[in-house]
C-alpha cells in the first residue's frame, strides 16, 4: 500500500458549547488507512470531536476537510453524502430498540443498496459473525448485555463496508478477551478492506496495540499537545501530562 494520502484534515478547529470553549487550535491529519486514536482524559472533548467529524455538531471555528471537500462549508446534501460513506459506532451501541439486531443491521442495507432480502440476510449473518455474535439475529437490543450491544453496534456500523469507521469508546465495558478480539477486528478490517479507522478511546492497551497515528487532547491546556504514533509518542515525549496519561500515572 502506497499511502499517506490525507483522508480527513482538521485545521484550526475550536470546539465550544456556547461561550464555554472546550478545545481550541486543533490541527491534525488522518491519513487513508490509518487507525487514528483520539485520546485524552475524561471530559477533554474526545466525543465532542467525534460529533463534529461525523456532522452532528458544527465547530465553533475552523475547518474539517474530507479529502479535498470542506465538510462544514458544504451544503447539507453534500455533507450527508460524505457521511454516508462512514460508519459510526456509538458509545453505548445506540441500537434502535424496537428492532431486532438483524433489522438494525439490515436497515442501512435496505436504505442504500438494492440487494434482495435474501442477500441482506446473508450480509447480516456475516457481520454478526465478524463481531462474534453469530446466531443473535432475532434478539432485541434490550435482551442482550451491554458489551454485546456494543459489538452489534459495530456490526451495524460496518454494514455498508464504509471507507471510514468511527468508534466511540469501543472497548470500554468489554471483557478483556472481547476487547482484544475487537482490536483484532479493527486491525483486520484496516488490513483487508483498507478502511480508515478513527477511534476515540482512553484504553491504553488498545491505544498501543492498534494505533498508527493519534492526537492527544490535554484538558489543562485546552488544546492538543501531541500527534503521531502512540508508541513513538511514549518513547519520545517530554510533556509530563502526556507521559502521565500514557503510563497510567506510574512514575518511570
Amino acid at each position, binding site marked *: 500500500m502506497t499511502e499517506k494520502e490525507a483522508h480527513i484534515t482538521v485545521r484550526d478547529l475550536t470546539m465550544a458549547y456556547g461561550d464555554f470553549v472546550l478545545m481550541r487550535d486543533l490541527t491534525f491529519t488522518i491519513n487513508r488507512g490509518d487507525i487514528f486514536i483520539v485520546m485524552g482524559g475524561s471530559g477533554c472533548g474526545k466525543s465532542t470531536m467525534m460529533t463534529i467529524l461525523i456532522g452532528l455538531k458544527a465547530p465553533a471555528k475552523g475547518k474539517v476537510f474530507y479529502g479535498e471537500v470542506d465538510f462544514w462549508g458544504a451544503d447539507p446534501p453534500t455533507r450527508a453524502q460524505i457521511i454516508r460513506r462512514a460508519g459510526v459506532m456509538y458509545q453505548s451501541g445506540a441500537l*434502535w*430498540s*424496537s428492532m431486532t439486531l438483524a433489522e438494525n443491521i439490515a436497515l442501512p442495507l435496505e436504505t442504500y*443498496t*438494492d*440487494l434482495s432480502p435474501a*442477500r441482506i440476510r*446473508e*450480509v447480516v*449473518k*456475516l*457481520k454478526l*459473525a*465478524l463481531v*462474534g*455474535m*453469530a*446466531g*443473535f*439475529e*432475532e*434478539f*432485541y*437490543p*434490550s435482551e442482550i448485555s451491554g458489551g454485546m450491544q456494543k459489538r452489534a453496534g459495530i456490526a451495524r456500523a460496518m454494514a455498508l*463496508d464504509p471507507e471510514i469507521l468511527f468508534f466511540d469508546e469501543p472497548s470500554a465495558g468489554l471483557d478483556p478477551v472481547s476487547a482484544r*478480539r475487537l482490536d*483484532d*477486528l479493527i486491525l*483486520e*478490517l484496516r*488490513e*483487508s*478492506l483498507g478502511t480508515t479507522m478513527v477511534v476515540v478511546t482512553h484504553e491504553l492497551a488498545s491505544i498501543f496495540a492498534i494505533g498508527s497515528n493519534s492526537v492527544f487532547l490535554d484538558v489543562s491546556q485546552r488544546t492538543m499537545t501531541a500527534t503521531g504514533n502512540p508508541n513513538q509518542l511514549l518513547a519520545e515525549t517530554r510533556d509530563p501530562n502526556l507521559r502521565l496519561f500514557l503510563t497510567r500515572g506510574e512514575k518511570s
Partner: protein
Amino acid sequence: MTARGEMVMEQPSEDTLKVILSGHWKLGGELPGADKVQQTLEARPGVRNLVFDTRELVHWDTGLLTFLVNLGTFCSRQKIRLNRDGLPPGAQRLLELASAVPEKTDARQAAEGVSFLTHLGNQTVDFFRSAGEMLEFLGDTVIAVQRLLRGKAQYRRSDLGLIIQACSAQALPIVSLICFLVGLILAFIGAIQLKLFGAQIYVADLVGIAMVRLMAAIMTGIVMAGRTGGAFAAQLGTMQVNQEIDALKTLGISPMEFLVLPRMLALGLMMPLLCLYANFMGILGGMVVGVWMLDIGFIQYYNQTAAAVNLWNLGIGLFSGTVFGVIVALAGCLRGMQCGRSASAVGDAATSAVVTAIVGIIVSTAVITVLCNFLGI
C-alpha cells in the same frame, strides 16, 4: 458502472474443483451466487476438495465474504474440504475471525403463530396479573401515604414544588381554553332547545350545574391525563431505562415515596383548584353565549347561575376533581414504574398511562354519580 465479478469453474483432477474468481466482487454489483458452485458440486459427487484461484481478483468486500460463507456452510454439510489458501490473505483472516466464535444454536427463531386459545389464555393470565400488580401498587401507595402522615416519608420538597408548578400553573392555559369552549358549547346546545319554550334564561342553570357538578372536573381530568399523566409515565419510564430507579432502591430510598408520593400529592392538591378555575371558565363561556346571543342581562345571568348552583354541586365537583387527580397520578406512576428497558417501552408506558387514567376517570364518574343518586344529593 459495470463492476462485476466473474466466476469460472474447472476440474484439474478427479476429486478437486477449482473456482476461479476475477473482477470486482463488491456488494451491490452483479455477483454469481454460491448456488452455482453448489449445483456443480452436486452434479459431480466425486469432488472432495474445493480450491480457489483469485489472482485475477481486482476488488472485493462483503460481497465476496458472504459468497464464501455460503459455500463454507454447504461444504461442511457435504463433507467437502474447502481450501482457503487461494483466497486473498485479508479474506482468509476475516473468515477465520467470523468463525472464531461458534454460532449460538439455541437462539430463538422469529415468533411462531399461536392458536387462538393459547392467545386467549395468555391474555386472561396477563389481565389477572396486571390487576394484581395494580392492587399491589395501590397498597404500596397507601403505605407511602401512611409514612407521609407520620412525617417519615423521604422525598424532596423542591421536587414537590416543581411538580406542583408543572401540573397547576403551567396547565392553566389549556384548561382555560378547553373549559371555556365546553361552557360555550353546552350553552349553544341548551339554547336551541330552550328557545323553543322561550326559556333561554335556564341556559344559565344548565351550564352552571353541568360545569360545576361534573363537566369541569371531567374535562380537567382528561386534559391532565394527557398532559401530566403521560409525562409522569415517560419520566419514570426513562428513569427505569437508565437504572435510576434501581439506584434509588439500592440506596434504600423507596421510589414510592421519592417519586410517586410527590406526584400524587401535587395532582391531588392542585386538581380541586384547577377544577374551581375551570368552573369559572365554563360559566364564563356560557355567559358569553347568554349575554351576546340570547340577550340575557349580565346581572340576570349571574343571579340565575348563583341561584342554580348550590354548595353540594360545588362540593361534588371538587371531590371528583381530587379523585381524578389521584387517579391520573397513580396511572402515570404505575405505568412508568412497570416500564421495560427500551425506548419503545417508554412510549407504551405513556400510552397506557393515558388510557388507564381516562378509563379510571370515566368509571369513577359513574360510581360517584350513582352514589350521589342513592344519597339523594
